């Protein structure tokens, strides 16, 4: 009780002693005099970088029927980060880094050879890749600080750091058996190819053509389709 009275008195004294009339809140504070425009970095400035997402569908024909795949289901999903250096109003170029997950679904028919001749209920060959690319960009039309419409031509390379082969079959008793094989000895570790993109703003149509083989020469496996066609979304404002 005694302590409470002392505390109350102390608060009253504090309140009485404080100077009235100083409570204020700054709602807007602007310093236009110190505002500086970053004219070096922007979508149509000297430097720009942004991330992107893409889905690419495997297209084209394999080297032989043994390499047939199920189209549409066979595709890759990628996430990348791109740097763009502007040379002139029309030309720019740059580098990009990406990670992707690509899955091939082999056609389950008597010609099947990849990665073996066994017919499965379900089967896929999954490549996880870390890659990089270099491209040259041609922009069309005049524009402000905007990505605009463009055509990219370039090259890419990637390290297949993890490849797995997954099969899924049902046994006679109805039991399902899923087999996941890793540390495979037939895929090549590194691959490279050509890329092309046609874009406007955030939306980009893209294609890649793999120049390198997917499987080691001594594996005897036919090559899977080399072409991909896909859609990319640029993660930038407009």
């Amino acid at each position: 009780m005694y302590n409470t009275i002392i505390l109350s008195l102390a608060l009253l004294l504090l309140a009485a002693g404080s100077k009235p009339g100083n409570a204020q809140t700054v709602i807007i504070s602007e310093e236009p005099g110190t505002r500086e425009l970053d004219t070096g970095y922007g979508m149509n400035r000297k430097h720009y970088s942004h991330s992107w997402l893409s889905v690419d569908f495997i297209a084209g024909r394999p080297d032989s029927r043994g390499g047939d795949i199920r189209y549409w289901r066979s595709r890759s999903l990628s996430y990348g980060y791109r740097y763009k250096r502007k040379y002139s109003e029309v030309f720019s170029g740059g580098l990009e880094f990406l990670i992707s997950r690509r899955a091939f679904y082999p056609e389950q028919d008597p010609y099947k050879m990849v990665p073996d001749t066994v017919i499965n209920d379900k089967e896929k060959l999954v490549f996880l890749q870390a890659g990089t690319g270099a491209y040259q960009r041609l922009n069309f039309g005049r524009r402000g600080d905007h990505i605009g419409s463009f055509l990219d031509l370039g090259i890419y390379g990637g390290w297949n750091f993890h490849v797995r082969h997954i099969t899924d079959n049902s046994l006679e008793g109805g039991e399902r058996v899923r087999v996941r094989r890793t540390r495979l000895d037939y895929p090549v570790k590194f691959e490279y190819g050509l890329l092309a993109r046609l874009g406007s703003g955030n939306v980009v149509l893209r294609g890649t053509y793999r120049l390198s083989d997917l499987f080691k020469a001594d594996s005897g496996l036919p090559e899977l389709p080399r072409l991909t066609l896909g859609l990319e979304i640029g993660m930038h404002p407009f």
Partner: protein
Amino acid sequence: MQKKSYNLLFSLFLCIALLCTATTDGEGQYSFKGSGQENGFWVFFTDKSDEGFDPYSFFDKKAIERRERHGICLYDPVDLPVRQEYVDSLHTLGLRISVVSRWFNAAHIYSLPDMAFGLEEMEFVRSVSPATLRLVPAMALPEVDLSDKELLKVQQEYMGTGFFRKNGINGSGIRIAIFDAGFRGVDTHAAFSHLNKNGQILDTWDFHRNRVNVYSSSTHGTMVLSAIAGKSTQGLLGPATGADFLLARTEIFREPLAEEQYWLAAAEWADRRGADIINSSLGYVFHRYFPEEMDGQTSLISRAANMAARRGILVVNAAGNMGDNDKWRIIVTPADADSVLSVGALDYPSMLRAAYSSVGPTTDGRPKPNVSALGTIVAAGRRRYATPSGTSFASPQVAAFAACLWQMHPSWSNMQVFNAVERSSTLFPYYDYSHGYGTPQASYFFSDPAAFAAPTFDLVRHNDSLRIVLRERVGPGNSEKKNEYLYYQIRNSDGSIESYFVVDLEEANKIRLNMADLVREQQVIVHYRGHTAGMEVE
């Protein structure tokens, strides 16, 4: 396989290297040669002829009156039509012509670059330049019932337009041109029945489709017109219900690639039809421009807006919705033009700058926006009502205000109306780059000006500090309730604002500013409740 790959790679790199070598001739330099793409170009002609030009048949009677009122020669070379034989010559070459501009003595064509620049060889062509521009209007919102009565009440009262109404002022006799994306529902919505019934919509034109019907495509223009002259069962949506209108569709769709020639063509169209005011709730930004180009001179549309102003038209334009875009922030074009009344948006209920409203100054340091108005309003939509937000809807409120003011003072020039709108605003003569001079007040034109001049604070210099002492103590939450904030700024000797602040005073009666950091000849300017005062650093 490997050898083939290396050959392909080598070829690709060789192509890229050649391309780079051929084009890295400095940033900003570019060439269309060989691109094979058809682009827009302006072809400027060498001369005009006044042969057979009769202004009395060419212009509407109102346009003649405006010219006479502003002392503009009826045979001004700028107004003479483009020589038809020049246009015919371009047609003969098979070029597609979208717009012919008498103000700029030019034609907008679509052509391959080589061919367009080749026209410079023709003796009647002064120059050829690539056309620039795209636009960014605001967004539309879902339609609502007319239930937001509180917002509507504020909308009807905060500019004091009741003074106009009580004195029978409704913009009558003033002709307002609205450039927008479409006016869907204007011909059917009850909010505009008075305009349709009385024949107040004098003319319409869709500059994209080259047709009369503008009542499709978008309700953006519908809401803008509503903010000027709409009526509802709950009262007026805009005060200028007696004005006449020219409606022009100059945008293709909501976030479109539109060309500046539509805006220019619409301005000349409106001029010829006697428009007194142009309301343009459009802003042109990043698609074609960089923020440093917002100097009122770079874009053709800014020059066109100034040209319209020189012909006696009051051009009112939205400041832009880029205020919360860190890469842009500043005013958009043509709101950057010198003679354009640029309007920023206020947030409701704080009545301070809405976060999206673009700020000034222009990149060449001119103060913009000029004034501010409510950014969120109740407006007529396609069938019912909507509460859209954006500087697009602040601009028409000021255009309507100006129309009423002009009806009161029909002998005034456009720039006299421009200045009077600024002078009547809540903060005047205080100015900042967020709010301009504040919100125009009709009461200014009906009350004793002395009532606005009563001091509300004193500035007291004490050693290295400046004390702002209010004459009336502020109660808790008072400033927020009444939107009576204290505004102050540090102004440089060249008139530019170094920094500015808005302070909510909670139970305060004085503020102390440290002046030790200020340099000589800088000024501290303070505004509180209609009173502005300043002190220079010695």
